């Protein structure tokens, strides 16, 4: 009986929403072709993949590649670096744009607001390659930041050669590039808050602080939560393309993360199967994190991603 009831529901839904599904079709097709078909290729994580033999012809080895990774000398360091870097990214990547958006929201002068918004947003437009070269230029001993550190603390080398320097460099440069961009999303959310709410609060005698706490922040909370959940999904990828452009063996101690390890094993050493296995591990862990944060959000707030 349950079954027919469900079937009936599906039939009604189809009749009513056919147009919607036709609109959705090309979108789903895109995802099937460009994202789900390659996912099948992950089978090589369980093989001794030989490019010439392909995914279907290579020898199946079960979880051997995963076991190699778990037993690897670097397993725990990779996990640690990945988690620390992503936790820092999560913290600053979510909080600093909220802060900037709230500060900008308090500004009355339109021209000033627009100027600051423009200035802080511009770095987002810069490509990764260029950002990486900017960082290198800046933290070199002759560069503006490197020069400062060398005169203050006597650090004669590029700041990128100190293991302790890597995380701050990543965090600060990410903040420089991304804060203005994400703040714009919050600003949009802020401007979506009903002005009448503020009027009502003012009539009730609520000060700026109370308005912030009770109207503004709840107003953008759904946006914050959605971005936060999304960010946890990216958590384990921690912008590895940037790390690859910036790191060097001397600072692997803090800079080597799972994704860079995958890149080296896969694209530099052509150990496809091993790289695919580590990548798959990374992806599964990331998936678990998103589901967890989504579940938490659903549990404790009204907002969730799915």
């Amino acid at each position, binding site marked *: 009986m349950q079954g027919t009831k469900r079937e009936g529901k*599906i039939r009604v839904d*189809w009749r*009513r929403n056919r*147009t*919607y599904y036709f*609109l*959705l079709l*090309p*979108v*789903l097709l*895109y*995802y099937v*072709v*460009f*994202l789900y*078909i*390659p996912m099948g*290729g*992950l089978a090589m994580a369980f093989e001794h993949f030989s490019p010439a033999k392909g995914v279907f012809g290579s020898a199946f080895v079960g979880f051997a590649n995963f076991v190699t990774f778990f037993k690897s000398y670097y397993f725990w360091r990779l996990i640690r670096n990945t988690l620390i870097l992503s936790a820092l990214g999560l913290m600053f990547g979510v909080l600093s744009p909220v802060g*900037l958006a709230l*500060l900008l929201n308090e*500004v009355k002068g339109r021209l000033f607001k627009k*100027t*600051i918004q*423009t*200035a*802080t*947003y*511009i*770095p987002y*437009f*810069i*490509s990764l*390659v*260029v950002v990486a*070269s*900017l960082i290198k*230029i*800046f933290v070199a001993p*002759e*560069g*503006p930041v490197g020069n400062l550190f060398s005169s203050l603390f006597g650090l004669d080398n590029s700041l990128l050669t100190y293991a302790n320097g890597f995380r701050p460099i990543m965090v600060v440069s990410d903040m*420089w590039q991304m804060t*203005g961009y994400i703040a*714009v999303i919050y600003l*949009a959310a802020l401007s*979506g808050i009903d002005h009448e709410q503020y009027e009502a609060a003012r009539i009730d005698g609520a000060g700026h602080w109370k308005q912030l706490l009770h109207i503004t922040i709840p107003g953008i909370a759904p946006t914050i939560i*959605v971005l936060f959940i*999304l960010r946890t*999904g*990216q958590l384990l990828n921690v912008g590895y393309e940037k790390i690859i452009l910036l790191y060097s063996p001397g600072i692997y101690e803090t800079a080597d993360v799972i994704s860079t390890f995958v890149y080296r094993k*896969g*694209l530099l050493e052509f150990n*496809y199967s091993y790289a*695919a296995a580590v990548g798959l591990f990374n*992806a*599964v862990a990331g*998936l678990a994190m998103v589901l967890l944060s989504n579940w938490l959000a659903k549990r404790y707030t009204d907002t969730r*991603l*799915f």
Partner: protein
Amino acid sequence: MDTPFRKESLPRKTFIVFNALLLSVLGVIALIPFVHVLMASISDPFKLAANTGLILWPKGFSLVGYQKVFESVEIWRGYLNTILYTAGSVALGSVLTIFGAYVLSRRNLYWGNKAMFFITFTMIFNGGLIPTYILISRLGWIDTPLAVIIPNCMSAFNLIIMRTYFQTIPESLEESANLDGANKLQILFRIMIPLAKSSIAVVALFYVIAQWNSYFQAMIYLRSANLFTLQLVIQQILLKNQATTASASGSSAYVSVVAELIKYCVIMVSIIPMLVAYPFIQRYFVSGIMVGAVKG
């Protein structure tokens, strides 16, 4: 509606002043790297090599770096290619994103949540480089613009942003249109899209930037020099700087000193179009958000 500054309380006044100062500092910090690079790019190569610290004014003056950069035909061709690919990719991506976001913002769809999961899942889980490459080559897209235009044309992230926006449009609007006899397509094209114009612009802009700045796709899929994008060309110029030498037995006078300078010039050349276009896009962009917000 707003209180004039002089009538504000003292703590509030202090906050406003402090806030303005803080924001100004942040604004300056955001811009200083550009000033540094701009000034370095028009400096004299030898003085530049001897310089340490921030450059707020050119050290000597020379345009030799720019001259070298612009002498290359590849840069101009790269510009044209990037514009074409970006246009194609953004148009396609925006249309798909609008369709997807709108449909998935409807609350009464039986498959809605499942489809949403199907899409967001790809943000945290995908096949990686090799399987994707095999797919593209089986499609016969290697060394064609299609490989750059289509495979990365939409992102689940932007779809979610737009979906979130569609969700804020009151259902009552749709219901009343429904009562007036409008069908779903008419509602989408006549009501929803005009209402969402601002956020569509935002999403399109994100696509433009992503496409403009991307080089990895172009690097692995394009082979013919006449198809190269700007970022790829820039990469190669930087590479060439490093490698001219690999076979040159004794030529290339003072290339190495100029090479440093060229780095700055190449950076400027790659970001200038964005910087120039930005104020124009931004006006529409920000005011669009505000209009959308008031109407929504």
